[in-house]
């Protein structure tokens, strides 16, 4: 009888002990909130098809990162020696973003930009969103490094945001990355009202000259000269710019098809999975749910609005100096933010609303890819000044 009593106590004690290890015992309201956010991301990705390649890994990563556990079991992403911590190393040390840029370079056709190089300036103008957000972040009391890391959300470039925040403000990286990717997914929602507000009927109907054909030599020279010129000016952008242009040379050289295929195929897919999952998992409620994160989300939205506004207004001003026939449709001004190719697609969709035969996609791809270069250059400048 005594033995059976002891056995029941033994079982009860161990069940209680087991319970302390379960997520039910450790869960907090913060974890529940974050799990809901993760589920919303997954819903948006599947039901609305908003950037599914990014939102599915990030959304699921948020679920993974917010399963509450007993610390010390080498499970959490912030615990040294855990599997997730090893995978997170690539984010912390800024390894994944340049690899993604390699893939982007290998899949990007810069012909639109080469055929009409003045579109590059729109890509530069849209970077104003970054520095507008930087000024607001300083006013809100963020430290200079934090302000720089948050501001890069305005570049609308996830890998660049992760790269810069890992160097300037590693503590805020989760919030910055989630904010950047969320707003990139919401580009079709954020940009059109601003574009409509800032343009008039006549401007929206501007027809641009068809781009000229670009020779193979020009396509090969672009990544070489582009890399040399931009990195000589901003060497701190080398990891991103170097890889971007290297990937593009693999594509355009025509003799490294296998390498280009790997860079734009398997490699970028693997890195996207790892970066998405680990960035999502880094949003552990205990470290993520702070007032700073709320501020980062607000600043991210502001930077996107400023960037889009700056891009559209720049085209309008630029048009004053251009001859009739060479004018640029201001509806491609939004694509200066580097959310490739979503913002260019927005230009096309909004353009077709006003003229069913005016296809702006090819023209918008120019500032769009220039935006990628511009945001990498801007990241290099912030890194140079603030690190």
């Amino acid at each position, binding site marked *: 009888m005594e033995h059976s009593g002891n056995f029941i106590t033994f079982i009860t004690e161990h069940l209680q002990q087991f319970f302390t290890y379960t997520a039910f015992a450790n869960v907090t309201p913060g974890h529940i909130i974050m799990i809901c956010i993760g589920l919303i991301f997954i819903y948006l990705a599947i039901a609305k098809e908003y950037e599914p390649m990014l939102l599915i890994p990030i959304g699921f990563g948020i679920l993974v990162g917010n399963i509450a556990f007993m610390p010390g079991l080498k499970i959490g992403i912030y615990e040294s020696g855990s599997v997730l911590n090893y995978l997170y190393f690539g984010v912390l040390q800024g390894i994944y973003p340049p690899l993604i840029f390699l893939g982007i370079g290998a899949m990007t056709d810069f012909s639109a*930009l*080469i055929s009409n*190089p*003045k579109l*590059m*300036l729109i*890509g*530069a*103008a849209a*970077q*104003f969103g*970054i*520095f*507008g957000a*930087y*000024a607001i972040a*300083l*006013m809100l009391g963020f*430290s*200079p*490094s934090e*302000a*720089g890391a948050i501001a890069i959300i305005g570049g609308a470039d996830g890998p660049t945001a992760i790269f810069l925040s890992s160097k300037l403000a590693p503590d805020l990286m989760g919030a910055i990355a989630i904010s950047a990717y969320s707003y990139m997914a919401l580009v079709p929602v954020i940009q059109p009202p601003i574009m409509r507000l800032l343009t008039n009927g006549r401007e929206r109907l501007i027809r641009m000259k068809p781009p000229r054909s670009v*020779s193979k*030599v*020009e396509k090969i*020279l*672009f990544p070489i*000269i*582009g890399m040399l*010129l*931009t990195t*000589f*000016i*901003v060497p701190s952008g080398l990891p991103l710019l170097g890889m971007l242009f290297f990937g593009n040379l693999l594509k355009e050289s025509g003799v490294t098809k296998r390498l280009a295929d790997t860079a734009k195929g398997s490699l970028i897919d693997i890195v996207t999975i790892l970066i998405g999952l680990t960035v999502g998992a880094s949003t552990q409620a205990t470290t993520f749910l702070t007032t700073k994160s709320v501020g980062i989300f607000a600043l991210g939205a502001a930077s996107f609005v400023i960037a889009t506004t700056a891009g559209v207004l720049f085209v309008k001003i630029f048009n004053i100096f251009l001859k009739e026939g060479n004018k640029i449709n201001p509806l491609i001004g939004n694509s200066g933010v580097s959310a490739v190719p979503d913002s260019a697609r927005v230009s096309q969709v909004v353009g077709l609303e006003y003229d069913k035969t005016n296809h702006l996609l090819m023209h918008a791809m120019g500032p769009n890819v*220039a935006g990628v*270069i*511009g945001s990498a*250059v*801007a990241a290099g*400048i*912030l890194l140079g*000044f*603030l*690190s």
Partner: protein
Amino acid sequence: MAKTKKAIRLSGVLATLVLLLLAGKSYSQSGIDLRINEILVVNDSNYVDDYGQRSGWIEIFNSAYNTVDIGGMYLTNDPTNPTKYRIPKGDPLTRIPSRNYLIFFADNRPTRGIQHLNFSFSDTNYIALYEVNGRTMIDAVKLGLQKSNVSFGRLKDGSSEWGYLEKTTPGANNFTGEVISSGEKFVAIDPYGVGMAVIAMSVVFSALLLLYVVFKNTKRIYSINLKELLSRKKAVADLPKPEPEEISGEVNAAIALAIHLYISELHDHEEAVLTIKKVARTYSPWSSKIYGLRNLPK
């Protein structure tokens, strides 16, 4: 001729630009980045070595951004004998991590380990570090009158300014004042970020403007026929160029029809794709029928 002159001028501008960009200070990352950083000659009540003894010491600083192995190099206090003390090779201690330090004790007791030198400060007031070849000097210091327990060193790690340090800092940063980050310095001058916006946007614009200028002229540059330029066969150049062949109406009609079909999406939706590529399937024992459970054992 005017076109040629313009192209040459443009090439000249580009070449000058590249040269200007190339001009400037370069930074290497190797043994030559090691620096004698701090020295304490009279050690009465200061840093104690691993034997609990006090002696003069020399701090070496690795100013590079990578690990540098000091093994095989030489420390000396005699200008006529650069290879007086050879730092042994292969010891993990000799690998100085980036922006880190290694202390050597000038106690004339080399049997106590690799950090103990075979000379002391009583012999001379000169210290030098030589490369592995024993001929190339990396760094040298002449010491003046030294105070007890006050070290003489670079005011900031690796800098060229020397002086008596407020605190002795063996194995640590020589500058013990408050360190202000470059970001904080920037914000102190530019609290609203206006300066940052102006500078950074100028740089972004310049970078992309430069690309614009180059690619606006690239086609012109590479299409220059150098052979033609060198041989100056003007006659060939002056020949009237043949008119481009006019495209026939049938071809234009075919192109227009194709574009119309494409835009209106009137083409057939093809389910299958014909290919001449060989279909290769990767063999895997997991999918092999040989190992299927349905197979009867032989």
